[in-house]
């Protein structure tokens, strides 16, 4: 019984995170300025990371943790590059 | 910071990192972890980072608790703003925060704290004027906020890093 409840809760959480991603994606697609899009992308990455964590809980496999770790540790690189591009016109000076 | 063992703190942290990655405390991993940490530390020292001194004091746990509490509080505050304040334009705005702290690591820590706390956003640090520009989502009392940050965070951070 609790197993089913847990399953439902996780699924519901995934749906919520999915909506969160959708919000971020909306910002990403809509703009209006480039910085909004970058912000959207950053949020999208974070939400995706959380989604992957819930996958991990759901399956009981630690594999998804690695994926989340990658996003957490390295995901900021692309956002940094984008921000720097906006500020300086190029990524590496 | 001897030549033989640069950044002992760092190496210890990296070994810990390795062990956490591998979720193991086996002596083998300890060995490999040390090796890896040495390599990584060598990489860092090639970048010639600023020297880091951390004063171990009670400031660290205090700061941690304060920050945690503040984060939870401001989470709630921001959630409320997002969910319930629909139409009224919020009184958000910029404040200029003069700082006494000069240590870069301290500043970085402060930046993390301020940014990680929902509702405040670290925007620009001006070393010449020694001030930082902060955007605040729900700006009610500018001076109160400045004193709050200076008292609650900056002082503790200065304890730790300077």
């Amino acid at each position, binding site marked *: 019984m609790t197993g089913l409840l847990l399953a439902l809760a996780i*699924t519901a959480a995934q*749906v919520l995170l999915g909506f969160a*991603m959708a919000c971020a994606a909306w910002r990403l697609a809509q703009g209006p300025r480039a910085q909004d899009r970058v912000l959207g992308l950053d949020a999208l990455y974070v939400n995706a990371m959380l989604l992957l964590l819930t996958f991990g809980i759901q399956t009981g496999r630690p594999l998804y943790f690695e994926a989340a770790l*990658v996003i957490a540790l390295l995901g900021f690189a692309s956002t940094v590059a984008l921000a720097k591009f906006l500020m*300086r*016109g190029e990524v590496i000076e | 910071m001897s030549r033989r063992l640069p950044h002992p703190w760092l190496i210890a942290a990296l070994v810990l990192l390795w062990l956490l990655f591998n979720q193991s405390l086996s002596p083998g991993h300890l060995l490999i972890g040390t090796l*890896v940490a040495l390599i990584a530390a060598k990489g860092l020292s090639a970048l010639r980072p600023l020297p880091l001194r951390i004063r171990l004091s009670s400031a660290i746990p205090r700061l941690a608790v304060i920050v945690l509490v503040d984060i939870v509080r401001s989470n709630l505050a921001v959630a409320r703003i997002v969910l319930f304040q629909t139409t009224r334009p919020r009184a958000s705005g910029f404040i200029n925060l003069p700082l006494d702290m000069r240590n*870069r690591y301290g500043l970085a820590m402060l930046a993390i704290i301020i940014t990680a706390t929902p509702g405040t956003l670290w925007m620009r*640090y001006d070393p010449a004027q020694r001030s930082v520009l902060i955007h605040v989502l729900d700006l009610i009392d500018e001076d109160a906020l400045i004193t709050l940050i200076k008292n609650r965070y900056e002082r503790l951070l200065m304890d730790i890093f300077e």
Partner: protein
Amino acid sequence: MFEEWPLFILFVLPFLGSLAAAFLPTWARNAAAGLAGTIAVVGLAILIALYPSLSGDGVVREQIQWLPSLGLNLQIRLDGLAWLFAFLILGIGALVVLYARYYMSPADPVPRFFSFLLAFMGSMLGVVLSGNLIQLVFFWELTSLFSFLLIGYWHHNQSARDGARIALVVTAAGGVCLLVGVLLLGRIVGSYDLDTILASGDRIRANGLYTPALILILIGAFTKSAQVPFHFWLPHAMAAPTPVSSYLHSATMVKAGIFVLMRLWPVLSGTDEWYLFVTTTGLATLLVGAWSAIFQQDLKGLLAYSTISHLGLITLLLGLGSPLALVAAIFHTVNHATFKASLFMAAGIIDHETGTRDLRRLSGLYRAMPITATLAMVAAAAMAGVPLLNGFLSKEMFLAEALAEHSGTYIDEALPYLATVASAFAVLYSLRFIHQTFFGPPPTDLPRVPGEAPPWMRLPVEILVLACLVVGVLPTLTIGPYLATAVRSILGDQTPAYSLAIWHGFNRPLMMSLVALVGGTILYLIYRKPLNEAKSSPVVGRLKGRKTFEAVMSAIVAGARACEAVVGTGRLQAQLRVLLCIALVAGGLPFVHFGYSLGQAPGTLVDPAFAIVWLIGGACAIGAAWQAKYHRLAALILMSGSGLATCITFFWLSAPDLGITQLLVEIVTTVLLLLGLRWLPKRLPEMWSGNRWPPSVLLRRSSDLAIAIAAGLGMAAIAYAIMTRPPPDSISRYFLERSYTEAGGTNVVNVILVDFRGFDTLGEITVLCIVALTVFSLLRRFRPAPESVKAPVQQRVQNAFDDAHADRKIGDTVADYLAIPRIMMEISFPIIIVFAIYILLRGHDAPGGGFAAGIAMSIAILIQYMAKGARQVEAQLIIRPLRWIGIGLLLATVTGAGAWLLGYPFLSSYFRYVDLPLFGTIPVASALLFDIGVFALVVGATVVVLIALAHQSIRVPRPSRPATDKEEGA
């Protein structure tokens, strides 16, 4: 055996001589001429020595194995006809060599001339001595080639170049037709062997392919022997040095066509088609050539057209199809060769001595060069058909044949009259040639003062003219037996009775000859003056072969260009459109044919979160497609959105390795594209506002949209069809079952990558290595567009801001900007290194591996570059990425090759469980070393690519030179 070796020597000697002459120094003209002459004389001697074995129906053969599987061997076959032609080729060749020795200027590179001449001689011999039709065509084309080189020998003259080109194109085209014709004969008979083909005449004539084969062979023969309407190349070939003309256009090149007609006469003749095509062509050529010759002002031009006319005569005779006509044709071929060769040589002497060949300027040369004049007159008389000369004899035979009944068509009716008219023309132009040149008032205003030619130069003419006389007077004693052998070799038992006597009585042919002689003389007397004014021959002159040829050629080229523009494109978009359409059609047809069907595999339930993820991914994809033109950055960010959705799918579909790798690649790709974005131009505002696109644009876009949708639907449909089917029995079962037991890894994907299919990985990292090298070397010479050379506008604004404030230095803004983030980015460096090593080492057992680790490592470096700028990082970190690449590649390869030492194939992994004191039992696999190689290479390659790009902004471009400006302006 005795008879065969000489034949082979005869066959190869000219080619060897040609090769030898080609290597003689330019000044060695005596040596070259001597060599050529010796070869011709030796060949002649061999030929004469072989003659006895031809008596009766004798044929000498020699065969050398060459390409037996295709029925092609080097078959040398000497029979009477071949002997006669070979005699002409070698005999006149020897004389031409002698003549050329004195004719050619010492300033010319004469050895080359003789080299070509010898090669040509060899090719001609090859044609006549071929015992195999393909071989015949082979040498036939060689004659075209060498005649091209000979005609174009003075290639500094425009006319020589044009003449050579026309001759080559026409004769080579004809040769190709001949080849196809011969191939058809080969298909009918089943062999290309001449004897076999000659024996299957009836079979060939009865076959449905006979007519096409006949037409093709005739085209070949006619182009070579300058028959109407292909005759125009011959006059233009007169730009060649005169020895060439006298050789090629009297005895050899043009006679090759005649030779083929004679050779295949037993097989092809005797049908209505043969009669119709050959007779008509011959007749037309006879008349057109004679008529045109009358109006020529150039000595060699006159001779050229007369040659055409005589070739027409021979063709006509061959076309009549009767054995007697064949005899006449062979006889006339020999006669024509002798008198025409001598006439060309005489014309050459005149040209040589006076400096001009213009009939209008020449006059009264008899006084200056009496011997030459006499010789020329005798030869011209032979050409005109004056009795007691060889030309008369064969012409009488021709006239007799013209009178005989052949087919009962109108051609038969008209032939006697037309033959007489043509003969009269021949008299007319011969007379004009002689009279204008040698008689009349002394010449004035010639480029040179004329005198008698050196005796050695005259000698060949003398010999030939003597031959004309002797044959003319004593035909049966001289040419008779040889002619008989030649005729017998073609006709065999059907050889008719004929007589070579000078006097056959006062019969109709003689009457016709007399009419022609008298008529021609009278005509000359009447029209002497107006002929000198003629610019071109009336009526026929309108048919300007050369102009038509050039027009046809340029029409072909223009047509080709136009067609190419229609069926081809140089534009990338069009090419991609075509590619996609074809792929769609090709991929779609099987579905149309077999019907689209779904499988019965049970489906999986829709996961709502996953559906939302793809809602986002799809929206991002469409958004990116929409935005990419004007909002590149937006499109790039949107692409990352889709990429993220793809990564999540990988995780969700049980492919964690892929997910991690794709995530990392995603990050690097984004940075990479951003690095490139800096060098792209600012987007211009949209040209067509709103929805009012021009129709062409609308059409293009809607067709692109249709292709895109079709491709999308197609892929979706195929993917769906696959997913609904149960999986086949795949080889991957093996991998799963052996992965741990035989390769020591639990992450099967990684084991496949580094062990089962490690070779793929080796190739893949090689690709990465190549790309890195390419990028590195390309960017070494990167020349940015002028407007991108300056720093980006942001930097200029910010630097200006710093400059404007007294308390700031330039660069302070960026320093402040990065001051705090830099701390965190620096700290991340060792952490990411640890992480990279972690995923490298555990790759064999869990998701990760060399590639992912390498990318992670390069991201660590990349972050430092972003935090500090290239200069500062490179002052601190010494990264030699190319060396990393090399070491990585070597490590991977050497690990693979290590298996050789144990006698195993490349990449066999060494793997063992080892007990180590601190670690317990762990698997030690050589695959790990391989993976480390991959890691090193990936780090190196990624860093090279990123850093090479990043370096572009810190390089200082040179001021561009004026030349480059021009280049860019164009």
